[in-house]
């Protein structure tokens, strides 16, 4: 069977990772004392398909290991074994381990981890505590192991092949397998008919026979096992090996390969512990570019729409071929163009839909995280997930996970109190963390809410003073103090733990979110809890933009950050210095950035009173931008300026307008930095 399987292995990796994810979530949901049958089945199925797939692809390390899991789960599923929390822990650890194994396979490196041997031992030990009354007829006992160095050694294999009674009904013919084996070496087949029933009791379609096969070959165990791959679940197959080489002969004349898995790694336990750390500590990038699973439904919609587009194009093409255009064809051309516009818009939306995934992909990792950290800190936490079906662009999702993990860790570490403290405050012993996602306008909002202690404004103020972020005489509102945690170099944790407190926390979170064109807000009430609100665009590829004109140049300002636009009368303009001007807007004083000045070109209106001030949001602070004129609003496709040029301060990218010219997209945060305005509103207040 010479089929190149490598082309399918990527699918296997993806499916396995998905399987592991569902295994993990089911395991976390599982109540150990009363395990839900459906959950156990789901976990079993995941383990089973990983095992099957990995065996097919020849990833014997994964296959052997998942086999242990499967055996254990099978027993639990059949009610032959009681699930314990120890099992649950082992299975969760296995999920991590298998993830690393698959990661190593994807990167085509060898996987080594002392945890593997340890878990194998634990599983074998758990399986060895066997229920004595268990007459395991159909139990899989394919417990043979591969010997790395047994290749190219002539060996005599004795194979006890006891097929399941239904094997013929499944369409498997043992004689075909024997023929296959014969290709591997010299085969001797002996039939064992001791289990044959009386003729009157015999079912003609059942298989009562067993075989004893003697195979002389230099092939490895894997290659032999491959022959039985499709039936090994239904059969009992024992492999015994007798090696012909001299060094193996000294070991034992007939080395029984039916040894348990714990003996597999050929090092003693001592050497295992001293072996080098697992290679896969730093998750390196996998060579594959990643892929998305798209529902057939979405694809069908797309195909429909492309069909419509082709029809419209044909119609317009016909008109285009006419030598002159009369009234009638002009009308149909206009119609066609209208259709074209609507099809294009629909098509764009549907294509964007392909990249959309439900946010549960990101949420899924949190139950585990919260459970582990909660245990580590001795805190009781309940995690509530809401709006898991909210869809989000895959790229955005990948980039938002790390900031979210950071925020959740922070909430666990700093926010939630220990059960004793909570009880003394009159709250419920179990704290809660809520992850909530929903759509609002063209944005997705992700909230991370905890009912912990809230932010300690006193402590934050003290720290900020220490770090020189604020001065002694600065009067700050509670909210303004809370915002200080987003400043670089700020961390209130007394000790640097591996959870949080490295001082690179919140400012990095804010920067990451900012890079996604998003914002983060914080509301905190003492002893009531805190709420972080992350606002993100649904996609990174398209932006709702307001076109503005400054002199001869057209710029795009992201619509999400615009509050309002207004003309400002002279008496509401305060000049602080030559370069700093403020406008009074209701009860606020806003600094104004003259776009033409920062971008170093000319404009129609040099003074604030002549032009238009656009009030925009930059990191929760309002800033005015002086522009000449507002043009249209439109969706623009974001193009990178950095691909062929370099990052330009104050510009986040470029786009191509309807007339084919290029317009630059203003990066408000960058522009504020360019203008050198810091904390402007706070100083002014």
């Amino acid at each position, binding site marked *: 069977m010479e089929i190149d399987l490598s082309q399918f292995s990527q699918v296997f990796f993806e499916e396995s990772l998905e399987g592991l994810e569902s295994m993990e979530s089911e395991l976390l949901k599982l109540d150990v004392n009363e395990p839900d049958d459906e959950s156990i089945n789901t976990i079993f199925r995941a383990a089973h398909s990983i095992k099957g797939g990995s065996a097919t692809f020849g990833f014997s390390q994964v296959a052997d290991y998942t086999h242990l899991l499967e055996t254990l789960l099978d027993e639990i599923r059949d009610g032959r074994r009681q699930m314990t929390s120890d099992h649950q822990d082992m299975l969760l650890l296995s999920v991590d381990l298998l993830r690393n194994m698959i990661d190593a396979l994807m990167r085509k490196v060898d996987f080594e981890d002392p945890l593997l041997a340890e878990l194998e031992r634990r599983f074998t030990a758990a399986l060895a505590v066997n229920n004595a009354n268990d007459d395991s007829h159909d139990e899989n006992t394919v417990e043979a192991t591969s010997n790395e160095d047994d290749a190219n050694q002539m060996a005599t294999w004795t194979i006890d092949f006891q097929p399941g009674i239904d094997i013929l009904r499944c369409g498997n013919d043992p004689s075909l397998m024997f023929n296959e084996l014969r290709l591997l070496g010299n085969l001797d087949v002996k039939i064992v008919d001791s289990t044959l029933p009386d003729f009157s009791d015999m079912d003609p379609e059942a298989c009562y026979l067993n075989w004893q096969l003697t195979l002389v070959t230099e092939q490895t165990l894997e290659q032999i096992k491959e022959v039985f791959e499709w039936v090994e679940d239904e059969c009992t197959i024992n492999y015994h090996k007798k090696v012909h080489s001299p060094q193996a002969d000294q070991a034992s004349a007939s080395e029984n390969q039916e040894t348990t898995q714990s003996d597999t790694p050929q090092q003693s336990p001592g050497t295992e512990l001293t072996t080098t750390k697992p290679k896969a500590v730093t998750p390196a990038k996998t060579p594959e570019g990643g892929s998305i699973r798209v529902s057939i439904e979405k694809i069908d919609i797309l195909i429909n729409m492309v069909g419509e587009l082709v029809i419209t194009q044909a119609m317009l093409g016909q008109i285009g071929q006419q030598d002159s255009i009369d009234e009638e064809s002009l009308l149909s051309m206009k119609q066609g163009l209208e259709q074209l516009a609507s099809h294009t818009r629909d098509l764009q939306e549907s294509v964007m839909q392909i990249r959309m995934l439900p946010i549960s992909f990101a949420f899924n990792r949190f139950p585990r995280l919260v459970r582990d950290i909660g245990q580590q800190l001795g805190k009781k936490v309940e995690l509530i997930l809401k709006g898991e079906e909210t869809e989000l662009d895959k790229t955005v999702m990948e980039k938002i996970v790390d900031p979210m993990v950071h925020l959740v860790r922070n909430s666990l570490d700093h926010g939630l109190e220990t059960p004793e403290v909570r009880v003394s405050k009159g709250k419920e012993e179990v704290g809660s963390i809520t992850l909530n996602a929903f759509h609002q306008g063209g944005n997705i909002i992700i909230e991370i809410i905890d009912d912990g202690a809230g932010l300690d404004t006193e402590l934050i103020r003290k720290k900020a003073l220490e770090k020189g972020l604020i001065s002694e005489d600065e009067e700050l509102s509670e909210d303004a103090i809370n915002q200080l945690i987003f400043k670089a170099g700020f961390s209130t944790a007394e000790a640097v733990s591996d959870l949080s407190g490295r001082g690179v926390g919140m400012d990095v979170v804010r920067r990451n979110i900012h890079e996604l064109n998003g914002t983060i807000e914080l509301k905190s009430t003492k002893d009531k809890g805190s709420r972080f609100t992350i606002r993100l665009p649904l996609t990174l590829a398209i932006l709702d933009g307001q076109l503005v004109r400054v002199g001869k140049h057209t710029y795009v300002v992201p619509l999400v950050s615009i509050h309002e636009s207004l003309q400002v009368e002279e008496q509401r303009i305060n000049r602080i210095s030559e370069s700093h001007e403020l406008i009074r807007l209701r009860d606020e004083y806003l600094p104004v950035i003259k776009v033409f000045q920062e971008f170093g070109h000319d404009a129609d209106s040099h003074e604030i009173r002549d032009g238009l001030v656009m009030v925009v949001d930059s990191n929760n602070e309002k800033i005015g931008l002086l522009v000449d004129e507002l043009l249209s609003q439109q969706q623009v496709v974001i193009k990178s300026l950095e691909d062929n040029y370099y990052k330009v301060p104050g510009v986040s990218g*470029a786009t191509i307008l309807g007339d*084919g010219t*290029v317009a630059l997209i203003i990066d408000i945060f960058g522009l504020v930095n360019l203008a050198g305005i810091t904390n402007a509103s706070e100083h002014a207040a």
Partner: protein
Amino acid sequence: MTQITQQEQANTDETSQQYLTFIMASEEYGVDILSVQEIRGWEATTIIPNSPSHVKGVINLRGTIVPIIDLRQRFGIETLEYGATTVVIVVKVAISSDHKIIGIVVDAVSDVFSVNNTDVRSAPDFGDDTDLGFIKGLTNAQEKMVILLDINKLLGSEILPEASQLSNLINNIDAQQPKAVNE
């Protein structure tokens, strides 16, 4: 023309390279033809704020944003009004493992030559600090001096090497060599 074909035939072995030459201020320059993507007429650009003066802005090249660099300004030669013959040579510049597409504005495109690598002379050393790494060498093609440019060194770094001295260099070379008439 026949002369060129002969020359091409004589030189199409591995040691020779083909160069696209262009003219700027009566001087002829050559770039490796393999790095040239296309040649376009001048079109209006969108300026990039706070960019060096030789960066004329960006254009839309079939959906890709491509920066345009004025080579005259880059070399410190007095600038000309862009006219009908002003052309933009779009080149692919290798930058470490990546590449960037950049357009360069020149006066006019001239010719394609095969140049034998043994015929390339290194640029004279003027003894000052001027970094002329972006000059691959000098060669003669049809009795005319051609300055061969290393496009990767010329455009490959963000902080462009100071090139205004190049005009001095050219004057110096011209002084050493009788100037060829090419118009």
